[in-house]
Each structure stands twice: as C-alpha cells, then as structure tokens.
C-alpha cells in the first residue's frame, strides 16, 4: 500500500507531459511503516538512456530477437544513472527518508508495465507508470514486482489530502 497526495500525482503527470515524446522518470521518497509507504516527495530524475546493443541484449524479453529494439531511444526507455542512484542511497542513509519507488511515463502507450519494466525492476519498490497520450497525461497506475520476478501486481494506493500529509509529517516529527 502506498499513500500519496494529488499534488504528487500531478507532479508525475506534469513531468510526463513535459518530456513527451520521451519518457520521464523520477523517484518517490518518504516513510515506511510496516507495509505502508507514505510518499513525502516526488523528485524528477534525468532519463539518461542511450541506445546500446549491450542494454538491449541484456534485457531481451523472451521471444525477442537480438537487435529488435536496437533503434529504440528515450521515447521508449528510461534509465537512471547508477551514480545518481548511488547518491540517492547515500542521501537515504543520511536523512532516513526512504526510497519508496520510482515513476516513469509511457508516451503514446498504455500505463501497463512492459517486459522491460519487469526485467529491470527490483522487488519491494513501487513503480508508478503514467500514460501520456499525444502529450496529455492519461492513466496512472502503481505496481510492485512479484517475488518470483515473473510478473507485476497492481499496488493499492490511497490519495491523501495535502493537509493529511502535513499532519502525518507533523505527527512523525512529534514522535
């Protein structure tokens, strides 16, 4: 279960529209209590994907042929540089604000995880996908990788009113 505010969702949609026709990507930061994740910040990250044979062959879905996706660029892929991810993890240790998951857009494509999304996904993280059709944000969905890595399951989410977010945050600080 992930909880986030309408403002967070808007930030994701706006980012997706801004980078259209390319994919956008970003990180969800916040708190974890048991099975509950609460997003405190949605932060845009740079999509540094560059087509490379290595990338494509390493993520070849079953049945695909080498080179099939060779000409695909940022309009169909996103990649966060490992350095940026490393920096986020360092920040996570410093601030105790957890990396809860990531979001990215599917330009002119449904908000459903692809084989590539699954291939590259880590367990536990929440993956939010926003479909952007002809430059306008459309469906938005949230997913989590199954333990056997074979499929994604839809993650339930709850919209918090922005003041609820504030109250939650204050409550935590008081504790």
């Amino acid at each position: 279960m992930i909880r986030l505010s309408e403002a967070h969702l808007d930030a994701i949609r706006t980012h997706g529209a801004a980078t259209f026709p390319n994919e956008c990507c970003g990180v969800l930061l916040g708190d974890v209590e048991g099975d509950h994740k609460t997003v405190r910040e949605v932060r845009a990250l740079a999509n540094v994907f560059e087509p490379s044979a290595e990338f494509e062959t390493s993520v070849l879905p079953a049945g695909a042929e080498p080179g099939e996706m060779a000409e695909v660029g940022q309009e169909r892929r996103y990649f966060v540089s490992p350095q940026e991810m490393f920096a986020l993890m360092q920040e996570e240790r410093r601030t105790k604000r957890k990396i809860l998951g990531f979001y990215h857009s599917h330009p002119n494509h449904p908000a459903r995880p692809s084989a590539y999304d699954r291939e590259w996904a880590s367990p536990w993280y929440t993956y939010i996908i926003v479909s952007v059709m002809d430059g306008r944000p459309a469906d938005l969905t949230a997913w989590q990788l199954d333990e056997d890595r074979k499929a994604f399951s839809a993650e339930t989410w709850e919209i918090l009113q922005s003041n609820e977010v504030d109250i939650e945050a204050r409550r935590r600080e008081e504790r």
Partner: protein
Amino acid sequence: MARVLIPTALQQFAGGTDELDIAGATVQEVLDGLSAQYPELKKHLFNEKGELRHFVNVYKGSEDIRTLEDMATTVGDDDELSIVPSIAGGAGAPKPLPEPVSVISDERGANAELSNDEILRYSRHLILPEVNLEGQKRLKAAKVLCIGAGGLGSPLVLYLAAAGVGTIGIVDFDTVDMTNLQRQIIHGTKDVGRLKMESAKESLRDINPYVEVIGFEEQFSSENAMSIVKDFDIVIDGTDNFPTRYLTNDVCVLLGKPNVYGSIFRFEGQASVFWAEKGPCYRCLYPEPPPPGLVPSCAEGGVLGVLPGIVGCIQANEAIKLILGIGNPLIGRLLLFNALKMQFRELKLQKDPSCPICGTNRTITELIDYQEFCGIRGEEAAPQAVEATEEITVKELKARMDRGEALTVIDVREPYEYAIARIPGTKLIPLGQIEERSGELDPNTEIILQCRTGKRSADALNRLKAKGFTRLKNLVGGVAAWSDEIDPTVPKY
C-alpha cells in the same frame, strides 16, 4: 571483511537489515559470502549463470567497481560496498513505422500509359485500392534488374512480368542444365542446353508481351556492374555465390539503389531489403564472407526445389511493394524461413556505423575485386593441387579393372550420394572421416580416391598425404566422368 550496504528493496532478503559485515578479500568473495548467508538474496544479485545481474551495480566507497577491477576488486576492513540497483524500463513497443514511399516518382508514374488490353489484364490489381490505376502505372514505369535467372530469379521474374513491371533486366550468361529444372521453373525440358537468357525471355514474353525484357548476357562483374545497374530502380539479388552477392550489395550502395536480397540452402531461406539510404546493407549484416568452402552451394548441399519459389516470391513481393510505396518493406529486417518447420522468423537488423561501405567512415568508395575479397582467387590458384602423376583417368581405371587388378578405390562422397550412383568395387569413406579412418587403409598399396567430380577426392588425397600415405591417385572427373565415358547406366546427379 567489508561492510555491505543493502538497498531498501533487498533488505527483506537480508534479515531486514541495511548493512552487514561480510568476510572476504575481494568483491567476489564478499558477495559470495553474502549469498551463502542469505540464499534468498542471491537470486536477486546473480543470474542463473552466476554472473552479477545486469541491473545490479556495486560501489566500493563512491566508485563503481566496473571502473576498478570489477569482481576482483580488493576490499579491506574499512571499505564499504554499496549494492546499487539500476533503475530502468520503459514502454515495450518500437517506434511507429515511417510512411512508405514509392521508388517511382509521381511524375514517372503519371506518364506511364496503359492500353485497354493492359487494363483488362491488370483488372485484379486495379480494383485493389492500394494498387489501383496509379499504382499499376508506377509498375509499368518501373525498371527492375534481377541478377541471375536461376532458382530465385526464375519464379520472381515470372511474377514481376505478370504483375506488369514495365522493364525487367536479367543478368545471366549460363545455359539451362537438366539439374536446373527441379526448381528453375522459367525454363522447360525443351530448353536444356539453351542459353537461360533466351529461354527466360521466351517465357516472359509468353506471360506478358507488354513487358520489355533487357538481357545482359555476361558475367556480372566489377567492370560492368555500375553501367548495368545505373538505369534500374530496384535490384534483386538472385545470385548463388558470395563474390556476386557482395558485388550486388556494393553497387547498390554506391548507386543508392534498393537491393532485394534472397538466399536459399537446403530447406532454409532468407530475405531482406538492403537499402543503405534507409537502413542496413548486406555488409552491415555480414561484414566478411565466410571462408571459401565453409558454406556449401546448392550444387554441393542440395536445395528443396520449392524453396527458391517461396523465397523468390517474397523478393518479388518486396520489389512490388517498393514500387507501389505500400506496406512495410523488409528494410532493417531479415526474414528467416524454414520449410520443414514451416516457420518464418524475423531478425531486426541495424545499420552498422563501422560498415566499410555505408557507415560513417567509408573505406570502400568503388567496386573492388570480389573474387579476391571472397578468397576465391587464392583457392583457384592453389586449390587442392594434385600432381599430374597422382591422377588417373576413368579410362585407365576401367582398363586396369578389366585386367583383373585388385585395386583399392575409396569413394569419399556421402552415403546418400553413394546410394544414387557408384563405380563398382569401391569402398565408401566420406571425406569428413578420411583421416580418422585412415587406419583401414594400407599405406603400402596404391589407393585410388574418387568423388563426384574429383574435387573432394583431391582434398582427401592431400589429407592422406599429410598422414604419410605415398601411393595415392585421384580419379579425374569422378563418378560423373565414369558415367560419361565408361558406363552411361550410372546416373549423373
């Protein structure tokens, strides 16, 4: 010993903790130790082959171990190793396809004229909205060159002519042979011995008298290729050998023409459209020819007769699509067909930036010597050379057999060839086994080697010579010569 920092995502597999102290002198040892301690974690770090998963990065301090010594990077007690997952993904579908454009300009198409007879003839095209009168006129205006009127060329030019392609060029200097008729359906039994060009022209004229057929009765070579190709819109590769295939590719790249490629072997075929201006060329796919002799020709390996019909029709289909400017051409895609499995597969091809003829740094700017490029000249100069004293003719062999000499004649062909035709009294040892089975042969007696035409047996002779055999003879012309000169009841194949 090192401290390993576990990302939140994987902490559930590492006892819920975010850092662990693990023994080991290198990254490999530490990660192995970690995997041993937490087997659940292992499958998220390593793939089935035991390699680090491609989305797992490891940092020592603030440096990616790939910039250090990778898994062999040494670690000390004060070092921190961070496991950093790669964050990537994206929608799966490729880019939308570009709109196809006809290779025939609107003006040329509009200027073509169709008689009433032709309109009736092409009726079934004209009522297709994707073709209609405009497309049929483009077909009439189009000039398509087919290199070779053999297995692939035969069916495809028949269909091009029937479809109303206005000008069809054919390059072929061969004559029709009985063994061609199993698949080269443009020629008939009555044509055996005639020039393929004559026979092909006759068939095409019969199918469609409105088609102009231009024959180039010469070997397609570096000398004539540019002048032959320059006036055509599309080139179709119906060649059966590597030098001509590379030549066809190169001349098309240099002149900016689309090259509709097809090739066949036994039960398998390939087809693609190589067009350097819009996608990869043949050299992007195969930068170098295979060593001579490695890939057998159809004459050596055989081919299912219907196969070139299927592949040739695919080529005709692609040529017609390029002319009409409809559909999705085979540019950047290699179609693989298996007649036994009845299966089509497709490989996406990409342009090779380092391609010597269509890449960014071109080293080939004019036609080269393709015989030499394919290593064939060298093979001809020093082939399986056999001394004249090591040769025996079929007449000599027959005479010695008739005298009742006890001769050892070894047939080095394959068993299925032996079943078709053989010289009496020979023993079968296929070429591939000649060395390992040389123990069956007595080095002190004379050994006569024989195959279909004398080439493979020359190879066998040299191999045995290298094994120390000295009394060897190669039968000139093989079982084919035996059939011609000694016993016509032995079939030729």
